[in-house]
C-alpha cells in the first residue's frame, strides 16, 4: 500500500470542487465523488426583502453571470406584479442580454475552457492558458478579444449602470433606455461582434475539427452520457436565451415535455445528498434513480449542448448554418458528447452576436416607452432565462406590499450537477487502473467537468472552469494514497 502523498494543501480552501476517488482492492475505481462544499443561503435571507431589490440582491449570487440572475429576477418581478413590459423594454433587455451571452461565451472559450482544445489537451500545462491561445491565434486576435470584451462590458454598463451587478431591471420594464445618438455605437459593436463570432467559429474549425485526434476525443465514450436535455425555446422551438417555453427532450432526442416557467415545480425537483451542499436537479415526471444515464433516470442536462439538443434550430441565419453543420458532424440530435459543449458554445456565440445586431439596429430600442407602472397587487411570480451555463429560474412569493415571504432559485449549474458528477465518475473509472494515475489523468478528468463551464460561483466561489480541482485517491481502507491538484 503506497503511503499518503499530499500534493497540495489548497485542500484547506473551501469553496473548491473536490473529487474523491475510492479504489477497490484491485486498485480500480470504485466510485468517484464530486463534492461542492459551500452554501450561502440566499433563498433564506431573501425573505423579508422588498421584491424590487431582488434583481440586485440575487445578482450577488454570482459576479461572473450577474446579468443572468438580474434578468431572471426582473422577469420574475413582471410576473409577480402582473405587468407586461412595453415592447421597447423587452427589446432593450434582450439586447443587453445578447451582449452578455456573447461576452461571457467568448470569455470562456478563449480564457477558460478553450485552451484545452485550441492549445491542445496534451500540451504542457504552462501553455494551456490565454497566452497559449494567443500563441495559436495570434496577438491581434487576443487584442480583439480584450477590446471586444471591454466594449461590450461598457455598453452593458451604459444600460445597466454597472456591468458587475447591474441595476436596470424593474417590474414592467427597465430603468434606462438607449439614446438615439448612441444607437450607432451599439450597431458597430454588434457588427464587430458578428465578425468576431464567425472568426471564432472558423478558428474552432481550423484548430479543432481539422484535428482528428481532437474529434475522436470529443466522440470518445469516456465523455458520453445519454440523459435528458433542457432549454428555452420560442414558438417554433428555436433556441432563445431570454424568453419562451422550457422544453425537455429525452435521450432519444424526442420532446419529453414543454412547459411555462410558472409550472416548473410540476416538472423539476431537487435531490439532496449528504456529502455535498449542492442539490441535484432531476425531472419530476421521471424520478430520481441515482446518478444514471438513460430515460429511466430523471437526470437531465443544461447549457449549450443541452440547449441545442432541446431546440429544433436557431433564429438567425449564420447561427442556423453553424447549427446544422454541428449536428451533421456529430451524427445528428441528440448530441450526447459532453465535450461538444465547446462547439455548441461557439454556435451560440454566433446566435448571440446576430441577435445582438438585429436588436441594435431596431429603431424601437431608442423609444422612451420603457416602463409600465404596476397597479395590481403582487402575489407570486416566476422568471426564467438561459444563463450561459443553463436554464436559470427565480420564483418569489410576496405579501400584498411586495415583501418576500418565500424565494426559490434553480441555478443553472444545479441542472448539470448530476451529470457533472457522473462525467467525473466515468472519466475516473475509464482512466484509473491499478491505482496508478498521472497528471494526464487529472487533465482528462478536469476536461470532463470543465466542458460544462460549471459556474460554481453560483454555488461556490470559483470562476467558471477555473475551479481549482483536488483529486484525492483513497484505498479500500479509505486512506488517502494520493492527492492531485489543479490550480489552473
Amino acid at each position: 500500500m503506497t503511503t499518503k502523498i499530499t500534493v497540495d494543501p489548497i485542500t484547506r480552501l473551501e469553496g473548491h470542487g473536490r473529487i474523491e476517488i475510492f479504489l477497490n482492492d484491485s486498485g480500480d475505481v470504485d466510485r468517484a465523488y464530486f463534492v461542492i462544499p459551500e452554501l450561502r443561503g440566499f433563498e433564506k435571507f431573501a425573505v423579508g426583502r422588498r421584491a424590487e431589490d431582488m434583481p440586485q440582491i440575487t445578482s450577488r449570487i454570482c459576479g461572473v453571470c450577474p446579468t443572468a440572475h438580474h434578468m431572471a429576477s426582473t422577469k420574475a418581478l413582471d410576473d409577480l406584479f402582473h405587468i407586461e413590459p412595453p415592447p421597447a423594454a423587452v427589446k432593450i433587455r434582450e439586447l443587453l442580454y445578447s451582449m452578455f451571452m456573447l461576452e461571457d461565451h467568448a470569455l470562456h472559450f478563449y480564457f477558460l475552457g478553450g485552451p484545452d482544445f485550441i492549445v491542445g489537451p496534451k500540451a504542457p500545462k504552462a501553455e494551456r492558458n490565454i497566452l497559449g491561445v494567443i500563441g495559436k491565434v495570434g496577438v491581434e486576435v487576443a487584442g480583439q478579444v480584450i477590446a471586444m470584451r471591454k466594449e461590450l462590458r461598457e455598453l452593458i454598463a451604459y444600460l445597466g449602470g454597472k456591468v458587475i451587478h447591474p441595476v436596470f431591471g424593474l417590474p414592467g420594464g427597465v430603468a434606462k433606455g438607449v439614446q438615439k445618438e448612441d444607437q450607432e455605437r451599439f450597431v458597430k459593436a454588434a457588427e464587430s461582434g458578428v465578425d468576431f463570432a464567425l472568426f471564432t467559429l472558423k478558428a474552432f474549425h481550423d484548430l479543432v475539427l481539422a484535428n482528428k485526434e481532437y474529434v475522436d476525443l470529443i466522440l470518445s465514450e469516456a465523455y458520453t452520457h445519454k440523459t435528458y436535455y433542457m432549454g428555452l425555446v420560442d414558438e417554433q422551438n428555436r433556441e432563445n436565451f431570454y424568453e419562451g417555453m422550457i422544453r425537455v427532450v429525452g435521450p432519444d432526442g424526442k420532446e419529453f415535455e414543454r412547459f411555462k416557467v410558472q409550472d416548473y415545480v410540476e416538472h423539476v425537483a431537487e435531490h439532496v445528498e449528504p456529502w455535498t451542499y449542492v442539490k441535484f436537479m432531476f425531472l419530476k415526471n421521471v424520478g430520481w434513480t441515482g446518478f444514471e444515464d438513460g430515460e429511466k433516470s430523471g437526470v437531465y442536462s443544461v447549457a449549450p449542448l443541452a440547449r441545442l439538443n432541446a431546440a429544433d434550430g436557431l433564429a438567425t441565419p449564420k447561427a442556423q448554418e453553424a447549427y446544422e453543420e454541428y449536428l451533421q458532424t456529430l451524427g445528428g440530435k441528440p448530441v450526447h458528447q459532453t465535450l461538444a459543449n465547446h462547439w455548441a458554445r461557439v454556435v451560440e456565440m454566433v446566435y448571440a452576436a446576430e441577435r445582438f445586431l438585429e436588436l441594435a439596429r431596431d429603431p424601437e430600442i431608442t423609444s422612451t416607452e420603457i416602463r409600465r407602472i404596476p397597479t395590481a397587487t403582487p402575489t407570486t411570480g416566476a422568471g426564467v432565462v438561459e444563463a450561459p451555463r443553463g436554464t436559470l429560474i427565480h420564483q418569489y412569493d410576496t405579501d400584498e406590499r411586495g415583501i418576500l415571504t418565500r424565494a426559490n432559485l434553480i441555478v443553472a449549474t444545479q441542472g448539470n450537477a448530476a451529470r457533472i458528477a457522473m462525467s467525473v465518475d466515468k472519466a475516473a473509472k475509464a482512466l484509473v487502473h491499478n491505482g496508478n494515475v498521472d497528471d494526464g489523468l487529472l487533465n482528462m478528468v478536469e476536461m470532463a467537468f470543465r466542458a460544462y463551464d460549471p459556474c460554481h460561483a453560483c454555488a461556490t466561489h470559483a470562476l467558471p472552469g477555473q475551479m481549482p480541482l483536488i483529486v484525492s485517491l483513497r484505498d479500500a481502507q479509505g486512506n488517502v494514497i494520493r492527492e492531485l491538484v489543479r490550480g489552473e
Partner: protein
Amino acid sequence: MANEDYEPTIVAFTCTWCTYLAADLAGTSRMGYPANLRIIRAMCSGRIDPQFVLSAFQWGADGVLIGGCHPGDCHYQEGNYKALRRFKLLKKLAAELGIEDERLRLEWISASEADKFRDVVNDMVEKLRRLGPRSQAQPLPEAVPAPAPEEAVHA
C-alpha cells in the same frame, strides 16, 4: 422570568431642558426608583443619533429610553419632533430585528414631571425584568469565535 436576581440595565438619553431636570427634581424630591438607569445628557432629544441607541444595545443595554420635551415645548423649537421622526423609523428597525417593544421607548417628560419620570422608570424596569436579559430574549449574535482546531473541518 427564570433568573430571579436579573437586573436590566437601561440607558436613558435625555434632553437638558426637560427630562434631565425631571430626573433632578425626582432627586431633590427624594423619589426613590430602581438603580437600573444610566442617564446620558444631550442638549436636545433631537441630538440623539440612532447610532447611540444601537450602540447602547450592542454594548449590553437591556433597554433604551429617550426623554424629550412635550410636543410644542422644545427649547429649540422642533428638536423633539426630529427625535420623533427618527424614533418612528428606528422602532420599525427594532421590530424587524426582534428587539421587543418594551426595550425602546420615547417619552415626553417635562422639567416638572418628576413623578412621570419615576413612573416611566419603574414601569420600564418592571417590564424588562419580566422580559429577561436581551441576550436570551433576543440574542444579538456575537462574532463567531474562532473554532477549536479539532472542530475545524478541512475539505
